[in-house]
C-alpha cells in the first residue's frame, strides 16, 4: 500500500497569509500599532523584503581572512554562511543541509576545510557542492542511495553576492537590481566614505536581543528627534546636539536613508535649555571617552540605513556596522561589528575601541534605545488598534536640513505601505 495515497497530506503549499488590515486614512503620518505585533504582517515582511529583491548585509571581508574561514549570519529568519573558498572568493551559502534541512554550521565563526552536517554527515565543499554522503552504497551490500542519485543536484544554494569596499551583501532574488542601483548614489557614497577601499581590521562584536519588533530599531535610526532628548549622555557631553548642522535624506523611495550631523562640542543655547535633562554642570572625568581624534570624516557624524536591516556609520572614532536580525514579531537581535583600517596606528585602534563604549547593549548611548524600544513594544502590544503620530517637521517626505524631524520615518512608511499593499 502506498502511504501517500491514504494520507491527509495537503496537495499544494499554502498561499502566503493574507493580511486583513486597513491603514489609517491619514496615510504615512500615522503608524498603526499592529505593524509591530501582527504575525501575518511579519510573515509578509520576511517573504517580501528579506527573501525578496533586496540586498542584505552579511558581513565584512576581514571577518573571513583565509580559505575556510566562515561567519554564520541571518538574512531575516534565514540562516546563511559567509565563507572564503580555496580560490580566495567569498561565498554566501544557505545554512541548511540539502538532506533534511538542518543548519550545517552551528558556530558564529571558525575555520573549516569543508562543511559536514552533524545529523547524517553529508559533506559539502566551501562552494556548497555536495561532495559525499555516508552509506551512499549501503552497508553489507544492501541499501544505499538509488543508482541515479546525482550529488550535483543536491548541493546547498549559493546566493548572489557582492563585495563593496570589503562589505559583503547577498540577495535571495535573481530579480534584484545591481547592488549599486539598489543603494542609489547617496547611500553608496556613504558606504564608500566609510569603506574607501582600504583594508579593514576586525575589532570585535557586541550582540543583544531586544524585545521589540525589528522596525522599531529601523525607525530609531531614522529618528534624530529622540537622540537629543533620550540620550542625555550625548547632549550632556557634547557629542550631538539638536542645533547641530544636520541633514535627513530619505532615499530609495523611502526605504533607505542618510542622516548626517556635525560634532560641534558642548555649549548652552536655546536648544539645550529645552531639554529637561540637560545638566550644564556635569563634567566627564575621562574626556577622551567623548573626544574623537580628527580623521577622514572631519567631525561629520552620520550614517546610512540600507534597507532592510543594516546601518553603516561612525560615532566619534568608532566605526561599526549595525545588523538587525528579526526574531519574530516582537523581538530582534542587534549585532554591532566594530572595525578599523589596517593602516590605523595603535592610538587610533585604541580610540576606536574606547568609543565603542558609546554603543552596544551597555553603551553609554545605545542602552537607552534598547530599554526604550521594549517600552514601546509593551505599549503597542496592549493597544494594537492604536496609532503612532509622526508629524514632527511637517507631513511631507522631502529631505530636511535640520535635525528635529521625523521625515525619514514618514518616508519609510510611504515606501512600506506601497510594498506591503496596505
Amino acid at each position, binding site marked *: 500500500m502506498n502511504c501517500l495515497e491514504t494520507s491527509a497530506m495537503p496537495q499544494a503549499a499554502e498561499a502566503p497569509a493574507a493580511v486583513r488590515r486597513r491603514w489609517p486614512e491619514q496615510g504615512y503620518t500615522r503608524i498603526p500599532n499592529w505593524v509591530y505585533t501582527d504575525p501575518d504582517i511579519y510573515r509578509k515582511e520576511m517573504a517580501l523584503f528579506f527573501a525578496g529583491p533586496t540586498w542584505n548585509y552579511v558581513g565584512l571581508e576581514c571577518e573571513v581572512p583565509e580559505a575556510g574561514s566562515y561567519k554564520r549570519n541571518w538574512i531575516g529568519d534565514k540562516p546563511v554562511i559567509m565563507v572564503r573558498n580555496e580560490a580566495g572568493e567569498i561565498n554566501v551559502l544557505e545554512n541548511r543541509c540539502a538532506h533534511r534541512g538542518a543548519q550545517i554550521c552551528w558556530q558564529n565563526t571558525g575555520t573549516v576545510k*569543508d562543511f559536514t552536517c552533524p545529523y547524517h554527515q553529508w559533506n559539502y*565543499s566551501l562552494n556548497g557542492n555536495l*561532495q559525499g554522503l555516508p552509506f551512499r552504497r549501503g552497508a553489507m551490500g544492501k541499501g544505499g542511495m538509488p543508482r541515479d542519485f546525482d550529488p550535483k543536484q543536491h548541493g546547498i544554494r549559493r546566493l548572489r553576492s557582492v563585495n563593496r569596499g570589503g562589505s559583503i551583501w547577498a540577495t535571495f532574488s535573481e530579480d534584484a537590481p545591481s547592488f549599486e542601483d539598489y543603494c542609489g548614489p547617496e547611500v553608496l557614497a556613504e558606504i564608500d566614505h566609510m569603506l574607501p577601499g582600504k583594508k579593514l581590521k576586525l575589532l570585535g562584536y557586541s550582540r543583544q536581543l531586544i524585545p521589540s519588533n525589528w522596525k522599531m530599531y529601523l525607525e530609531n535610526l531614522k529618528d534624530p528627534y529622540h537622540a537629543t532628548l533620550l540620550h542625555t549622555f550625548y547632549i550632556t557631553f557634547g557629542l550631538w546636539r539638536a542645533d547641530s548642522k544636520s541633514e535627513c535624506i530619505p532615499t530609495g523611495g523611502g526605504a533607505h536613508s542618510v542622516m548626517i550631523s556635525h560634532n560641534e562640542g558642548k555649549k548652552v543655547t536655546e536648544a539645550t535649555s529645552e531639554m529637561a535633562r540637560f545638566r550644564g554642570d556635569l563634567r566627564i572625568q575621562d574626556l577622551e571617552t567623548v573626544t574623537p581624534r580628527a580623521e577622514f570624516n572631519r567631525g561629520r557624524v552620520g550614517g546610512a540605513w540600507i534597507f532592510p536591516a543594516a546601518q553603516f556609520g561612525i560615532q566619534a572614532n568608532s566605526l561599526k556596522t549595525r545588523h538587525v536580525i528579526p526574531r519574530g514579531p516582537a523581538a530582534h537581535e542587534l549585532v554591532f561589528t566594530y572595525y578599523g583600517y589596517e593602516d590605523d596606528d595603535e592610538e587610533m585602534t585604541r580610540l576606536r575601541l574606547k568609543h565603542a563604549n558609546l554603543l552596544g547593549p551597555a553603551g553609554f548611548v545605545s542602552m537607552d534605545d534598547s530599554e526604550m524600544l521594549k517600552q514601546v513594544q509593551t505599549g503597542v502590544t496592549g493597544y494594537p488598534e492604536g496609532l503612532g503620530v509622526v508629524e514632527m517637521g511637517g507631513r511631507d517626505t522631502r529631505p530636511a536640513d535640520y535635525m528635529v524631524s521625523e521625515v525619514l520615518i514618514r518616508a519609510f512608511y510611504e515606501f512600506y505601505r506601497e510594498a506591503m499593499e496596505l
Partner: protein
Amino acid sequence: MSEQWTLLAEVADISPDTGTLRAVLDGEAVCVYKVDDRICATQDRCPHGNASLAEGYIENGTIECPLHQGVFDIASGAPLCPPVTTPIKVYAVKVEDGHIYVRTGQA
C-alpha cells in the same frame, strides 16, 4: 643492512565480499586489500572524515571511502577526487604461505 618485515594478517581473513581487511600494526589501523590477485596495504583512516577505508569499495584499483566517497589509488595512495586532498600512507607488502607481511623499517 636487512629489511624488517612484520606479520600483519592472513590472506584468508580478507573479506571475499569487500576485498578488504582492517588490521592493526603498532596501534595504527592498516587496511589490507585484495586487488585482483595482488595484496596491498594502506593506512585505514581516511584523512578527510576519519572513516575506516576497510568499509569502503574497491573499483579498478581504487578505494572509495564509505563516508563521503573520497577515492584513493590503492597502489600509490594518491587522492583522486574531492573531498580528499591528501595522500594516504602506503605499505610495502609481501606474502608467504598466506601470511601477509608489511615492511616496518630497515634493521
